[in-house]
């Protein structure tokens, strides 16, 4: 996963993205484009979590949307019904999503691959059906984000807040990927038997990675509740779980920055086909198939495709010896 992390220090890409965000935020007058930017940022946070879980640790999850849903429902319930502040309700809901994620991780210890994918899918569907059965109306009127008296609900400010979360998550995950823990989850993915022989406690590592991914999904769900204002299970269906997985795959497995690129791409792809409104989803399905067939490494691998000839020339004799 951290296949030969490039020589560029880890903080470069988050800073570049941060500047782009500020540039974009204050040149946009249209709510709509701001909203799209905000939505892609919200999904990016969950996508980074999923790329650590799936790209780095090799644990497939098709139920991430359920975790987003838990945090969003929690936030809506605590703010609308209980009148708690957006920040406090966020902390509680994210904790709830994390706990559920840990339980999911713990219960999935004995199974891998397809079976893990299907258990997480079942979890996601369970959440959707429960939401539809118990709370079909969900909530509306979730108050916008405000820290103390500072109202961050205005689209421009909220856009920046969301992308601050994205950049922070990006920096943290890039550092984590390089740390001892990052290496252990890569080892877990590549060869669990050898990883265990090297002293990696497989069970604890798997559950921890599930926890991290769920916490990030929780942050994403919290932000989504405030972004959307009205929360029902339709926003957290299995389609969202698949979209997150596709963002990670298209972005390049295991690369946090790739996940961000995947999120922006997926929210944006339907926009590019805007004039053919009804062909939008059809083209989006085809785009998915093409990227999988032609670019297995995802967007991030475009670099490797270009870099390969460069590296061989630079490496000179040693490479071909």
């Amino acid at each position, binding site marked *: 996963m951290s296949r030969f992390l490039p020589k560029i220090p880890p903080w470069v890409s988050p800073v570049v993205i941060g500047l782009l965000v500020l540039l974009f935020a204050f040149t946009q007058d249209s709510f709509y484009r701001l909203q799209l930017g905000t939505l892609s940022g919200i999904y990016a946070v969950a996508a980074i979590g999923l790329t650590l879980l799936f790209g780095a640790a090799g644990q497939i999850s098709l139920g991430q949307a359920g975790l987003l849903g838990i945090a969003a429902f929690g936030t809506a319930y605590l703010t609308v019904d209980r009148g708690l502040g957006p920040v406090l309700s966020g902390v509680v809901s994210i904790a709830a999503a994390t706990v559920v994620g840990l339980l999911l991780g713990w219960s999935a210890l004995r199974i891998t691959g397809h079976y893990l994918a299907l258990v997480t899918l079942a979890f996601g569907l369970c959440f959707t059906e429960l939401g539809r059965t118990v709370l079909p109306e969900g909530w509306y009127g979730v108050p916008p984000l405000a820290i103390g008296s500072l109202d961050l609900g205005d689209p421009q400010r909220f856009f920046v807040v969301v992308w601050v979360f994205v950049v922070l998550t990006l920096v943290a995950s890039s550092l984590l990927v390089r740390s001892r823990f990052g290496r252990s989850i890569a080892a877990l993915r590549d060869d669990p038997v050898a990883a265990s*022989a*090297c*002293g990696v406690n497989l069970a604890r590592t798997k559950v921890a990675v599930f926890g991290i991914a769920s916490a990030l999904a929780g942050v994403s769900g919290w932000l989504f509740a405030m972004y959307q204002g009205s929360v029902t299970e339709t926003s957290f269906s299995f389609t969202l779980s698949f979209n997150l997985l596709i963002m990670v795959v298209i972005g390049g497995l295991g690369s946090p920055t790739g996940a961000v690129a995947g999120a922006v791409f997926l929210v944006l792809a339907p926009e590019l086909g805007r004039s053919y409104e009804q062909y939008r989803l059809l083209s989006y399905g085809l785009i998915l198939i093409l990227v999988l067939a032609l670019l297995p490494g995802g967007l991030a691998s475009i670099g490797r495709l270009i870099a390969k000839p460069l590296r061989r020339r630079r490496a000179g004799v040693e490479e071909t010896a």
Partner: protein
Amino acid sequence: MTTEAVLAGRGITRRFGGVTAVSDVDVDVVAGEVTLVLGPNGAGKSTLVNCLTGVDRPDDGRVLLAGEDVTGRRPDQFNRMGVVRTFQHTRPFAGLSVAENVMVGAHGRTRAGFVRGTLRTRAARREEAALQAQADDLLAQVGLEGRGDARPTDLPLADERRLELARCLAAQPRVLLLDEPAAGLGEAEADALAALVRRLCAEFDLGVLLIEHHLELALGMADQVVVLDFGKVIARGTPAQIRADEAVRKAYVGVEEGT
């Protein structure tokens, strides 16, 4: 048994369905010495190693580490207790660089969790630096100098075996179990590897348990020998005694006299 065994197997037995792969085997690994477990293919050598390193659980019998009963512990617990192993078919981490593979080897004895690792606390940074230095040093020791950034899958088999050795040494182990390290290597490469193991064994005062069926090479390296056939011990002693032993020759029917 002259000195106290570091790792000892007492009455190790392992059955798969009707077949008894290993039955009632005693084996000792002594610090600074190479103990060889010899036997034809299917004699239960790999199963024995798996039982001694937690990859598999013996049906009965006990595994003692410096006298303490550690039967049935997980491989990562064995690693933290200083018992490491290589694999018959090398198992590199393909997604990590050669240096990173070695650094993972030290996972058992390092502590930086994901919080400290991410926040890059001073302790975590110091540990990373130490790990990096140790990796470079170990790679040099095993003859893979300067290949830290290479991809493990690009290395030839002999170098992959050396990488696995370096990865084991990163755990600063007391006991090293080698599962057919010479398999698939040419004559010269096997001899170079044997010399390396001897040197590391002396230098780090390691107890080494060697599993091999490459007779001449193994006997050359070993201080003590245990010969297995169909899971049972049929002979035990020094290499010289084993060479002369009638039962061993029968188990190795047709083995070349001494080419």
